[in-house]
């Protein structure tokens, strides 16, 4: 990869499903695209999921081919492990300053063989498994990562050089430095995605303190074939749970948290996980505590009805608090709003159906105006649904507010259409045969 100043038609920020789809749509039309991802691999949140609603396709079966298509596309240049430093208007487009963070591995030499990872003596929590799984200080971030290149985390390195010794490709390079570079782009597509509401945001629920109160991405990992335990266990003590509860709207629709909006996907992922758990642990009892079930998408209501038919228990109630009993079991105190009484129920494992919030800091360099929900503002949603307040900067996917994969892909193509029209009009290129 050359870091010389590069001119492209479009620069896409974020390599989740939305960013990848936008890049592919633009590339397919013959535009030159740069895709910038701050993590060592593209794939975003989606690549960490197990199976995806509403089709229950295996998630990597949908994501990995897209990742591969991006990597092989002749019109797409992929920049992973790069941070966007600043964006300025320049020459009728945008000048973007970036930094290639050091991997301490030469990407052009590394074959992804993982010898270094096996040799490395330090084990660290893997964010890919939400900290519940582990990898080594030098590692290929996950088995289907694109690119298949190792990355060394200097924060945990003891500089023992074992990785360097075992690397047949001579790819380990301790001399790497952060390398600033610049890309000039006619238009930007922002696809920086979302984060979950922090697990501990609502103190009453004990998230982050009680080991068996977990976030939903952890459950995605447990259900995935490559998950940290290879099966569904509770992280407190490795027990196979037989009673699992979901607390809906945990971290959404909650004015006390300052998150007033509905996160749109948590009803569906809770139902999906309930169905997948029923498959993995046929004897498990699954309860979903909810206020409103919002299965509004195409085919989603049917999905909800199927879950009810499978025996997933839906209880309308407000969860007031969660405590732990002496056996690490979470005890849920819930106000049954249809009956007017409050009960306590003990479960083996509780999943907080956390909402979606913007990625902290993802907008610092872009400096785009935000909506009251802190996601990137769309000034004219009913006219230009992907246009930000800055002409020539478009937004897609969960960066424009909570949305599921289908909606992310549709808005990604929509942002690509808006961006390509903008590029052509800039180049005065719309020629009619």
């Amino acid at each position: 990869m050359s870091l010389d100043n590069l001119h492209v038609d479009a620069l896409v920020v974020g390599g989740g499903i939305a960013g990848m789809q936008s890049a592919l749509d633009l590339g397919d039309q013959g535009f030159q695209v740069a895709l910038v991802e701050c993590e060592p691999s593209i794939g975003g949140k989606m690549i960490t999921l197990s199976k995806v609603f509403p089709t229950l396709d295996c998630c990597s079966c949908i994501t990995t081919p897209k990742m591969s298509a991006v990597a092989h596309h002749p019109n797409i240049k992929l920049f992973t492990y790069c941070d966007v430093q600043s964006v300025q208007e320049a020459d009728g487009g945008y000048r973007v300053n970036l930094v290639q963070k050091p991997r301490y591995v030469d990407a052009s030499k590394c074959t992804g063989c993982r010898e270094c990872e096996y040799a490395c003596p330090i084990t660290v929590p893997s964010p890919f498994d939400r900290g519940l799984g582990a990898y080594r200080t030098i590692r290929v971030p996950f088995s289907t990562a694109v690119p298949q290149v190792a990355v060394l985390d200097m924060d945990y390195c003891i500089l023992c050089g074992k990785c360097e010794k075992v690397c047949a490709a001579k790819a380990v390079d301790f001399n790497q430095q952060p390398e600033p570079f610049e890309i000039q782009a006619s238009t930007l597509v922002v696809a920086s995605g979302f984060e979950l509401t922090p697990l501990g945001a609502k103190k009453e629920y004990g998230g982050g303190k009680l080991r068996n109160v977990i976030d939903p991405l952890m459950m995605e990992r447990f259900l995935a074939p490559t998950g940290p335990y290879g099966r569904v266990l509770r992280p407190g003590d490795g027990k196979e749970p037989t009673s699992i509860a979901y607390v809906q709207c945990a971290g959404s629709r909650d004015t006390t948290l300052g998150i007033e909006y509905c996160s749109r996907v948590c009803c569906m992922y809770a139902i999906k996980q309930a169905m997948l758990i029923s498959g993995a642990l046929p004897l498990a009892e699954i309860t979903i505590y909810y206020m409103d079930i919002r299965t509004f998408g195409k085919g989603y209501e049917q999905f909800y009805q199927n879950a009810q038919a499978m025996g997933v228990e839906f209880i309308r109630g407000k969860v007031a608090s969660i405590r732990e009993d002496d056996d690490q079991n979470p005890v849920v105190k819930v106000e049954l709003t249809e009956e007017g009484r409050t009960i306590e129920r003990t479960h083996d494992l509780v999943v907080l159906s956390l909402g979606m919030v913007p990625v902290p800091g993802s907008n610092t360099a872009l400096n785009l105006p935000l909506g009251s929900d802190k996601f990137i503002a769309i000034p004219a949603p009913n006219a230009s649904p992907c246009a930000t307040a800055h002409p020539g900067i478009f937004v897609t996917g969960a960066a424009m507010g909570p949305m599921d994969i289908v909606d992310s892909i549709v808005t990604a193509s929509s942002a690509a259409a808006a961006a390509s029209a903008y590029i052509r009009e800039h180049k005065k290129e719309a020629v009619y045969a």
Partner: protein
Amino acid sequence: MPENTPNPESPAPVEPEEIRVGVYTCHCGGNISHVVQCERVAKMVGKLANVAVSRTDPSFCSDAGQAIIEQDIKELGINRVVIGACAPSLHEQTFRGAVTRAGLNPYLYHHVGLREQDSWVHASDEEGATEKAMRLMAAGVAKARLLDPLDPIRLGAEKQALVIGGGVAGLRAALDIARQGIRVTLVEKSPFLGGRMAQLESIFPTDEKPRQLLHDLIQAVTAQVGITIFTQAEVTGVSGYVGNFSIQVTQHARGVSPEMAEALTAACTQETPDPFNYSLTRRKVIYQPYPGCYPAAPAVDWQHYDGQPIQVNGKSIVLQDDALVHELIAGAIVLATGFDPYEPRQGEYGYGELSQVITLPQLIRHMALVKNGETLTWNGHPVRSAAIIHCVGSRELDGVHEPQADGQVNNYCSRVCCTASLHTALEMRQRFPRLNIYELYQDIRAYGRGHEEIYRHTQNAAVRFVRYHGDDGPKVIAAPKGDPYPVLVQVKDYLTYGEEIEIPVDLVVLAVGMMPRQVDDLVNMLKISRGADRFLLEAHPKLRPVEMAVRGIILAGTAQGPMNIQESLAAASAAAAKAASLLSLGKVELPPFVARVDPAKCNGNGACVTACLEEGAIALQTFVENGVEVQRAVVTPANCTGCGACVGACPNRAIDVQAWTLAQYDAMVDAIAMDWPELVEVEK
């Protein structure tokens, strides 16, 4: 240099290449390997003749998985590839790409659907599923030995698109396609553009004026180079295929010339219920739906015009519908035919029986007719209390709700009615402060950006919420004579712990869902499919969410399923991106799976021509063979769908579908039925 140059008359016999098959049994991220013992399958298949390598992987479709296959082709000289994985519809293209990158002809690869055909359907029988996988893979290998390199059919693509439907989605799609340098024809059935959005007064979540937004959009469309608009027009014929559809559009006459329009409209006396106001009012059969509509000129409602002369300036004029027929070509077709509000059955919540029961779209029109500052009345009586019932014609349950005309219940959520109801309730609260408003709902689905705020405002605006259960919905009855209110709504309210309550009201508003518009003719002409919900069906919700299975046909807006305006716009732009990707290069490639005639076996009996279901796909042509004129069947690949109807009809086994030849089928059947107990046992 070769020593002797081959005689050009008789080409040197091609050295039969050694067939080296690479076999790849994918775990499919557990989807297959949880049931099928992939390693055993791989080991067994590895022993078959010609198999040079047999491997497994958690997911061959990943970049690393594809790299393994590419490496084998390059380094082990693999020249036939068999992959046992998910459905070919999912990843055949992915693997063709990998095979091509490695320098092999992409059609020297065969895909075995181990997930759909095996692990998913035999989940409870690991042993049986594993043996079946072995047999399916062996059949794949048998076929692969006989694969020939093929070339895709390359066709020029017209850089023109057709958009059917001129609502907000169709308008946006047309604009965005034209902005990519592709000409667009927009065909709208009604005389005016804008669709259902024009019938709204103020839209969530922005409180904007929809007709103003439409006006801006239409202005952009009409100012855009490359867009032709036909109103009062319908597609009446389609032939061809992606890149080259031939389309016939029939356009009704506007019926009145611009000079005569005013006089004729004034003189016209025939009236009909006004669909713009959902029949709450009547209008003339020469009409404009609303001031500021586009095109501005009045049009004749041919469906309702009775053919009687209209007297103008002493002349008696009979309006004439001189329909025009336009022939067009287009490389891609965008369907933006929109939705109809659900029409409740006679008696459903009292609809059609009690005059006080109306639908939400009717209420919106009715409120538009009430002047600002006036009180809300219905049938001349002031409305003191109104109940909005959610989910009418949506979220219906089998065995609880009466089925629709086609025997199915509408079990989907229409997704806009919750927020539209809340938004309308808020407007009622503002304009009619003393009105009692009830919202009877199951779940409030205020999911979108800014929707939850509307819900909260409604809760703070003294709107009473009543929660009912879908299997025990509200009942609407006439109040006994002498009651202060004409109608009673009886419902079990789960916000007050299942208490039976009776709400006296002057007006019941049914928040009806969305149904797809009637498009049977288009469905038949284009040979496209609908889902169980009867909306037009996308090819795959995640991989191809706005494209249909028939290539070149793309979806925009509520023709595909319920959406709000923002979502319709996004889907329309996405459709434009797909049309542009398809057409901007000026050519398309079709798969080579078409019929091929072996002229040596064909005796020209023409059974194939009779059997063929496609227009212009196979025909007899006259050739001169040894000085004798003979008839031989000839296939036009672009028109052939590869259905194989001709193959079965030919008595001489002279026709094959490429990549699915009779010889290949024979080999596969032999392999599947093969006796091989020793192989299976060895593996145990």
